[in-house]
């Protein structure tokens, strides 16, 4: 029996920056069925497109995004900023065979102006991010993708922020989501996974208007998230286990074996 389904699920669940580690584990666990590793290309493709993998084109220092929104099919993707298309190997995450790809069509001007405005915003708020703007759905809509990664495996943590927005010029609506994924794994395994839907409408219909809305939605979300950490800490966490008993003293264990609930339990309570 093949275990491709289980192994593919492991790939899909790989934390930010740890895909190679997960693949190494998979190879050892499946050493009795080595053919399985050769069948993982679809799982890698799904991972790369969903996680917005980034790749530097040969001769360029700017990372470009891999997503279903800039796929040309057959493992080729395009990038608007550099006006190029390229082959992407999903298993090795390497780009090759770069060719000129000039954007044309009804949304070309909106795509370029959005790219410029989103670029200004991204540079102001992301120390290390890749982004892209693409015409999608037969040139009827515009997709905006932002991905920021920070990997610190020496300190046992990695993080990823992904944003995706779809702008519909016919209705002026902007629909999207922000997803945060943080993994901490020093003597443990702690994971933060969030998904915040965003709905807005852009009255101006301009690239600057789109970038402004994204900027304000993401700022608002990050502020809400920071408040969310505080309310989880003060709420659910505090309610699960007290830091100290009500008496604010540790337990006097020598007494505990001889005492029952409702009597003098916490150390020092008799002094109150």
């Amino acid at each position, binding site marked *: 029996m093949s275990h491709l389904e289980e192994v593919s699920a492991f790939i899909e669940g790989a934390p930010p920056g740890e895909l190679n580690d997960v693949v190494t584990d998979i190879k050892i666990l499946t050493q009795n069925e080595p053919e399985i590793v050769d069948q993982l290309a679809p799982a890698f493709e799904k991972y790369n497109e969903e996680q917005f993998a980034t790749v530097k084109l040969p001769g360029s220092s700017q990372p470009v995004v891999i997503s279903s929104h800039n796929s040309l099919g057959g493992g080729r993707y395009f990038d608007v900023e550099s006006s190029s298309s390229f082959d992407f190997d999903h298993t090795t995450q390497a780009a090759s065979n770069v060719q000129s790809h000039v954007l044309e069509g009804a949304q070309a001007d909106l795509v370029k102006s959005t790219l410029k405005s989103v670029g200004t915003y991204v540079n102001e708020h*992301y120390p290390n991010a890749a982004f892209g703007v693409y015409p999608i759905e037969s040139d009827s809509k515009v997709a905006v993708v932002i991905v920021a990664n920070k990997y610190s495996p020496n300190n046992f943590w990695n993080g990823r922020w992904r944003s995706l927005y779809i702008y519909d010029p016919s209705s002026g609506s902007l629909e999207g989501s922000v997803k945060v994924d943080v993994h901490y794994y020093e003597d443990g395994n702690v994971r933060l996974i969030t998904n915040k839907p965003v709905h807005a409408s852009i009255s101006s219909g301009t690239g600057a208007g789109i970038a402004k809305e994204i900027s304000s939605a993401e700022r608002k979300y990050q502020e809400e998230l920071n408040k969310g*950490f505080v309310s989880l800490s003060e709420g659910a966490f505090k309610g699960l286990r007290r830091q100290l008993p009500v008496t604010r003293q540790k337990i006097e264990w020598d007494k505990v074996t001889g005492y029952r609930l409702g009597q003098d339990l916490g150390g020092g309570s008799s002094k109150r």
Partner: protein
Amino acid sequence: MAAVDPFDSALDLLRRLTPKHVATHINSIISIAPDLTEDLLASVDQPLTIKRCRDSGREYLLCDYNRDGDSYRSPWSNKFDPPLDVGGLGGVNEGAGEGAVPSERVRKMEIKANEAFDIYRELYYEGGVSSVYFWNLDDGFAGVVLLKKSSTPGGNSEGVWDSIHVFEAIERGRTTHYKLTSTVILNLSSSADLGELDLSGNMTRQLEQDLPVDNDDSHIANVGRLVEDMELKMRNLLQEVYFGKARDVVGDLRSIGSLSEGARARDQQREVIGGLGR
């Protein structure tokens, strides 16, 4: 290259994949590598399940240490549920699992430990369920202290806390060498305005200590203090990682303030400091 033990790879994988779904991941690994089944079930901590004691009506917690096949021993009645087959190993074996019940002396300590940690649970958790299981070792005894508390449903946030403290007590005359391995599994989630948020995981810490022992009650007090200190330390650690570290990493990914203004402010500060030095 030396061959890597598949068990180590399985543990590494489980340390990386979403901790909230550890049961699913373990089942998948077991289907791929059935040889690892027993080792994984014995060494990977999973959220505890609750059962009600038929004799006392009180709730108790289930784990590998009070299990024999599909039966679990209640710490309140000392009986397995469902009952073990007559003529089975039950009562003969004094080690952990496999129908083990502790020897009379160790069972006496187990009863006292359950009473003591019931008080501990009420003082620190103000609810929840606790269970303590002891078993004999050749040169002492061992045990596990379990605590579980779920937040009251409703409201915008929910949480479940599971504590699993496994210890060995190696008796050496007037002192005993205690070795404690503690895991806390903490799953939190929040909804409403924030969208979906899940903050879940587990952390493990170990410590070893020699402590004086006068009588068997000293053991309960020693284990009590070790667990109490460990939980205080781990609660602080969880708070730091879950709420401090997670927020800091998000802040490293995206800056709420403008990066160029931040850089300008730092430049100005450097100039001021430089000016003072002149």
